[in-house]
């Protein structure tokens, strides 16, 4: 009952439509950028002539990796944080939460219901976006084998070659891995939402905190902080695109992310248990 209700409310919120529209616009821009970059670079830039890039390097699978990588780090967490931020604070602001709490339902069940629906939404958003990038790549450029080179998106330290079939399996594995990573910004935003009284404040704060942590992890002055920031591990799914998957490394990163997610969820629920609705 609680799950169905949450799903219905999510659909009526139109947040999925906004996210879908923004991601579609991003994909159009990526396609334009990808096409022009491939045209310019593979022609042999006079001042920078020694390049490994060639036309066969740019195919639908490379496009998909590029589009998903940037969307995953810069767009998807924002939509996920928006979803989490809107949950408890939004329900509190419009009085729904007070109505819920008058019913004989435990707060644990209510909290888990919201979490389950928000997580499912995040996962579907990531999966549909990944599938769309692959489809667009297939239709506009065509697939082929996947070649990844050192330095590009920091995905590998040596040239990796995956045949098309194997590469598609890796894309399929990347979906649950990326969904797991998105659980952390979702949990963080739920924690913030448990404190806030207004959905706008909760969403704004959640997005701001994510972006600040992401930017801090990129600035060299804060290199010592990086191991402790969850944003450093979000893109751990990149390891799935190596010829030999580094399972030990991936498992450690996944455990860290799950640990951060559990901590934020614990703090969120701790606050939610004590929260009083006016």
């Amino acid at each position, binding site marked *: 009952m609680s799950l169905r209700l949450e799903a219905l409310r999510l659909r009526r919120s139109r947040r999925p439509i906004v996210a879908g529209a923004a991601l579609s616009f991003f994909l159009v821009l990526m396609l334009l950028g990808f096409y022009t970059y491939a045209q310019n670079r593979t022609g042999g830039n006079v001042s920078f002539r*020694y390049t490994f*890039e060639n036309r066969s390097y740019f195919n639908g699978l490379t496009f998909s990796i590029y589009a998903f990588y940037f969307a995953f780090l810069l767009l998807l967490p924002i939509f996920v944080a928006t979803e989490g931020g809107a949950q408890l604070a939004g329900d509190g602001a419009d009085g729904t939460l007070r109505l819920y709490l008058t019913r*004989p339902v435990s707060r644990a069940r209510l909290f888990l219901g919201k979490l389950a629906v928000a997580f499912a939404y995040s996962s579907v958003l990531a999966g549909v976006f990944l599938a769309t990038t692959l489809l667009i790549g297939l239709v506009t450029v065509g697939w082929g084998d996947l070649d990844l*080179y050192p*330095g590009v998106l920091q995905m590998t330290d040596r040239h990796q070659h995956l045949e098309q079939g194997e590469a598609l399996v890796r894309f399929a594995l990347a979906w649950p891995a990326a969904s797991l990573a998105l659980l952390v910004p979702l949990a963080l935003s739920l924690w913030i939402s448990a404190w806030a009284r207004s959905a706008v404040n909760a969403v704004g704060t959640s997005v701001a905190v994510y972006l600040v942590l992401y930017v801090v992890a990129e600035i060299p002055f804060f290199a010592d902080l990086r191991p402790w920031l969850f944003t450093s591990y979000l893109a751990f799914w990149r390891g799935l695109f190596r010829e030999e998957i580094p399972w030990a490394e991936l498992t450690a990163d996944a455990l860290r992310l799950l*640990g951060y997610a559990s901590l934020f969820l614990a703090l969120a*629920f701790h606050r939610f248990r004590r929260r009083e609705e006016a």
Partner: protein
Amino acid sequence: MRRADRWLEVALFFAAGALLWLGFGAPEWRRDVFEPGQRAPLSLRLVTWNVGGSGSDGLGPLRDDNLAGIGASLRQLAPDVIALQEVASEAQLRELARAAGTRKATYLLAPGGGRRVAVLARGGQLRRLPLSVDGPRAMGFEFEGEDGRRLRGVVLHADAFSAEDRNRLVGEATETLQRAGGDLPSVLLGDLNLDLDLGKRRDLFTDNEHLDVETYNFVATRLADGALGTGPTAEPDRRLDYVFVSREELVVEHAGVWRGRRLGDMDHDPVVVDVRVTP
């Protein structure tokens, strides 16, 4: 209901603690510590070392005070071919050859002045290989060991401040090696000033650092990166020095960065690669 709430809260905190402990407590990958003594029999030992300084008085070539110490390290390493960068004079090379502990040492010093590249062999013969990019920063050579094994190579010291200059020098040197053809094994070694770990560092001093990715891959798709995965070679925590070897004719048996050998204001470690020549 309250009991369920309490249990969920406790379970979440417990899960957080356990998962974070497992994630951060997992045994860290430890870099192999390179020991020069571990050398496969019949292997050729290649070394590259930028022996210049970067002290408070600015970048400078190899200092005479460091010659004895560097020579002692070379004697311990016992390499077959040593590519040096930032050598100031032939006298320094002579001194290094003497300190390296063999009377049969031969050497080549790049033309020009200032900080130059050089090649030193502890035995056998060295011969110049003309390059289109010949100068203080690049020199081609052919090496023939006392046992008749031969190598063709280029020693480089790429510009620290311009990605375009690095691309031109490294690209042309790579093409020269390939054009030379024949069945001689090829090596390209030196301080290429390429640091690919952009996630670690945003460089304030180069014009177009992300394009170093292209330069590295241009070489790496043609030659094998002999010391890949052995860690940083220069201050501060950067991998700038490389030994690339031809894939078919040379097999890397042992490679590493020999740390703790810098003297004074030196800021690079020697990179050592042992290769076996395939029959």
